[in-house]
């Protein structure tokens, strides 16, 4: 403490330009922050509806099989519902895990490896899920009729 009184630290004059690293100059973190909140509200509705249809309505989990999925995706409503849920949840979750990696992975190399794996899984899962929703065949040829939805034999 005594030293501080004799030797004042050098500080730059007020309002002089910041030295060293510059700020990022983009607003991407702000857009991400807004997206987490906007998608969060939509996901609450989409996922609660999904859980009600699949776990509460009818026989719940016991009713789920190929015929159940085929029956739901026969309706454009559930196709759009599931597609929106897939994209919003994957972006929301990927951005959340990105934040966690930034918080806890202190070495640059660790962050690069973890985030590369994260973004790779994002692309694989979103592309796969989207293709499945759009190329789904409810009545595949050669499948036993008792596993298919009733409209296949009609």
């Amino acid at each position: 403490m005594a030293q501080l009184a004799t030797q004042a630290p050098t500080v730059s004059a007020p309002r002089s330009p910041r030295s060293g690293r510059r700020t990022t100059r983009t607003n991407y973190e702000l857009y991400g922050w807004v997206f987490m909140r906007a998608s969060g509200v939509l996901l609450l509705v989409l996922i609660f509806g999904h859980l009600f249809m699949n776990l509460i309505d009818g026989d719940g989990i016991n009713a789920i099989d190929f015929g159940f999925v085929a029956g739901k995706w026969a309706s454009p409503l559930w196709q759009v519902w599931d597609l929106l849920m897939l994209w919003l949840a994957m972006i929301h979750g990927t951005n959340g895990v990105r934040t966690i990696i930034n918080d806890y992975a202190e070495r640059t190399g660790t962050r690069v490896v973890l985030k590369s794996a994260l973004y790779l899984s994002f692309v694989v899962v979103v592309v796969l899920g989207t293709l499945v929703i759009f190329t789904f065949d409810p009545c595949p040829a050669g499948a036993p009729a008792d596993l298919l939805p009733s409209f296949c034999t009609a």
Partner: protein
Amino acid sequence: MPDAPAGTLYRGREGMWSWVAHRVTGFLIFFFLLVHVLDTSLVRVSPEAYNAVIGTYKNPVMGLGEAGLVAAIVFHAFNGIRVMLVDFWSKGPRYQRVMLWVVVGLFVVTMAGFLPRHLMNVFGGH
């Protein structure tokens, strides 16, 4: 000289623990989501492949896991609304503690509605 903080900047109580719970539940839900898209994708392989894998979701151990998953989703959803109220409602920061107890209350009510129904489906013998 003021006393140094006791080894941490975390302040504990409702604010910190709700943040921890939000982070942990979000992380768990994300990894279930990855698995869930992969298992659903089996509808594109064959009805038999999909039914075999979804059949494993119907055994009692997985049934309890689903109850835990739903609990994580319900907390994350309600606490997410609380986070938005703290951000956008002028009185949000003042009521953040009360709002956490509202979240806990809504969580209990929602789970009280969901659990009996789901556990009867899982253990009810089909």
